[in-house]
C-alpha cells in the first residue's frame, strides 16, 4: 500500500491531569501541537495538513470541534479532517496522517488527539446522553472474567499489572497518576468497581492532548532529531455483537496484529519487538491483548505478567509510560500509545526509556473491543531486519 516511507519527527504531549482549568479546550490541544512542532523545529506554516481525533462529542459537549479548532491548529486554508473510531481514535488518527504521507499527498502532517474529560462526563456521553449507562468497565468486566476462567489465571495477575503500570508512570513526568506508594495490597483492598476490576485496576479520567508531526524520507533526513520510522500500519473493525463473537479475543484484533506484523516483516513478535504500548484501560487487558494479538500463546499472556517479562526491565516491556491505567484523556489515549512507542525507538523516553529499544509496537482499541489500530515503529527502516 505504501509508496514511500513515513517517519515521526516531532512528538509533544501535555501533562495529563484531572482538570486543566488554566487552558481553554483549544488551548490544551494547542499546547501539545506546539510542543510537537518545537520538537521537529518547524513552524505552523511548515505544516501541510492537520488530522485531528477525539472520542464522541458528548464527552465535552462541543460539537464538531474540528471546525472551531482550525485557528488553534494553524489550519486556516489547509486541509483539516477529524477521525472518529471511539477509544481507538488516537491510533487511527495517527494512521490517517501516516497514510497521507506514505501516499505522497502531503509532505508534513500534524496529527493531534485530545480529551478534556473534566468539561463533561464520559459515562454520561457513552450512554448517549442518558443516565444509568453501565460504563466501559461494565461492558468489559464479564469478558475479563471469561478470560480468567478460560486461562486459569490466578487473581493477582490484574493487581500486578496495576502496580507495574503505576510504577512505570512514576518515571513519566507527563503521566496523570503518580502513585509511588502503590502496592499489591492497596490494589486488592481498593473498592470493587466491576468484578473482577478494583478501583486501582481501572484507568483515571484525564484532561490531556498529544500531537505528532509526520513526514516523508526527505523530511526525516532534514529533521533535527532522530526520526521514528513507521514500519507497518493496520486497522481492523468488527461488529460489537454478533452470534459466536469471541469477545475475549476479537477476530479484528487478531487480524490487525497479523497485518501489522506482516507489513513490518515481523515473524516472531515476542522476539523481534523490543517494547509495546498497548491500550490497557483495565488491568486484565494486558494479558488479554498479549494473547489476542498472538504475541503470547493461549494461556501464556498472564504468565508473561507473572514472570516479570512485561516489566520495564523484562524481555517484553509493556507500557513503560504507565499506559492508559495512569493517564486517560480518552481521545488521546490511543495516540499516546503510538507516540510513546515512537519516543522509545528514538531513544527519547527519558527515565522510562527501555534499553536498546529499536522496534516498538503500539496498539489502540475502541468501542466494544471492535476497532483496532496498530503501528510498528523502528529506529531505522531496517530495524526489524537488523533483529533477525
Amino acid at each position, binding site marked *: 500500500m505504501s509508496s514511500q516511507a513515513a517517519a515521526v519527527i516531532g512528538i509533544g504531549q501535555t501533562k495529563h491531569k484531572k482538570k*486543566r*482549568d*488554566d*487552558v*481553554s*479546550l*483549544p*488551548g490544551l490541544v*494547542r499546547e501539545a501541537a*506546539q510542543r510537537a512542532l518545537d520538537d521537529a523545529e518547524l513552524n*505552523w*506554516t511548515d505544516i501541510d495538513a492537520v488530522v485531528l481525533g477525539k472520542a464522541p462529542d458528548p464527552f*465535552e*459537549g462541543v460539537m464538531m470541534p474540528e471546525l472551531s479548532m482550525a*485557528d*488553534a*491548529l*494553524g*489550519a*486556516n486554508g489547509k486541509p483539516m479532517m477529524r477521525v472518529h473510531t471511539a477509544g481507538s481514535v488516537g491510533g487511527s488518527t495517527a494512521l490517517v496522517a501516516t497514510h497521507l504521507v506514505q501516499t505522497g499527498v502531503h509532505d508534513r502532517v500534524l496529527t493531534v488527539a485530545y480529551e*478534556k474529560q*473534566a*468539561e*463533561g*462526563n464520559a459515562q*454520561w456521553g457513552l450512554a448517549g*446522553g*442518558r*443516565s444509568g449507562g453501565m460504563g466501559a468497565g461494565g461492558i468489559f468486566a464479564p469478558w475479563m472474567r471469561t478470560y480468567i476462567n478460560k486461562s486459569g489465571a490466578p487473581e493477582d495477575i490484574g493487581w500486578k499489572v496495576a502496580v507495574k503500570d503505576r510504577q512505570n508512570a512514576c518515571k513519566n513526568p507527563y503521566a496523570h497518576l503518580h502513585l509511588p506508594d502503590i502496592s499489591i495490597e492497596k490494589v486488592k483492598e481498593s473498592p470493587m468497581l466491576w468484578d473482577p476490576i478494583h478501583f486501582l485496576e481501572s484507568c483515571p479520567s484525564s484532561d490531556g492532548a498529544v500531537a505528532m508531526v509526520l513526514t516523508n524520507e526527505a523530511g526525516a533526513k532534514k529533521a533535527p532529531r532522530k526520526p521514528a520510522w513507521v514500519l507497518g500500519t493496520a486497522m481492523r473493525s468488527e461488529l460489537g455483537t454478533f452470534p459466536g463473537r469471541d469477545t475475549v479475543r476479537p477476530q479484528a484484533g487478531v487480524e490487525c496484529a497479523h497485518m501489522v506484523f506482516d507489513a513490518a516483516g515481523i515473524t516472531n513478535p515476542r522476539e523481534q519487538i523490543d517494547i509495546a504500548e498497548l491500550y490497557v484501560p483495565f488491568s486484565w487487558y494486558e494479558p488479554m491483548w498479549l494473547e489476542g494479538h498472538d504475541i503470547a500463546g493461549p494461556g501464556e499472556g498472564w504468565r508473561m505478567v507473572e514472570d516479570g517479562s512485561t516489566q520495564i526491565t523484562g524481555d517484553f516491556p509493556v507500557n513503560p509510560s504507565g499506559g492508559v491505567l495512569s493517564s486517560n484523556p480518552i481521545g488521546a489515549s490511543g495516540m499516546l500509545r503510538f507516540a510513546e512507542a515512537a519516543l522509545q525507538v528514538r531513544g527519547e523516553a527519558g527515565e522510562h526509556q527501555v534499553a536498546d529499544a529499536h522496534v516498538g509496537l503500539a496498539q489502540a482499541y475502541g468501542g466494544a473491543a471492535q476497532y483496532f489500530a496498530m503501528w510498528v515503529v523502528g529506529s531505522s527502516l531496517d530495524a526489524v531486519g537488523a533483529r533477525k
Partner: protein
Amino acid sequence: MGLTRPPRSPERGVGGGWAPTCGGKPERVLLPSTVPADKRLTTHTIEFPYTRTLGPVYSAFLTGMRDGQILGIKSRDGRVLCPPTEWDPNTGEGLETDFVEVGPGGVVTTWAWVTEPTSKHPVDHPFAFALIKLDGADTALLHAVDAGSMDTMQTGMRVTARWKADRVGHITDVEAFVPEAAK
C-alpha cells in the same frame, strides 16, 4: 415469575410497559380506560451541566464584559480582532495578550431581522441579529440590535452598547446594541 402491574390511580396517568424480571410470561395489564389519552405520556428531561474552561483570552474578554468594557486583541498584522482570538487567524501563531478596548459604539456591517423572537432570543420583541464593527476594531462582533422596527435598520448605521445593570461576565452583559441616535 411474572410481575403483576399494580393498579394505578387514574390521576397518575402514566403509560409504559412493565417487563417481568425473569422467566415467566409478561402479563399484559391494560390501562384503565378512565385515563384520558393525552395523559398517557410523560416527559422526562435530564440535563448535564458541562464546564467550559476559558483560558487567558476569553477570560479577559468576559471579565471585561462584566466590567462594562469590550476588549479586542491585536493580531500579528496589527489589526484589532473583536471578539478576540487566542491565535492569529493568518499565521496560527499565539497572540500575546495585547488587548485593546473597543466600542462601545460601532457600525452595522450586515443584519437579519427576527420577526418573532422565541424565549431563547436575547430580546423579547422583534430585533435584528447583526455583525457590528466596533470603533477601534477591524473585525465584526455578532450581537443583537434593538432598533424598534425593521425600517430603522440599515447597513452602515451606527449603534452603541446598552449594558445590563447586573453584569456577570457573559456576552449578554450587553443586553443589545441600540441606534446611536436613540440613546
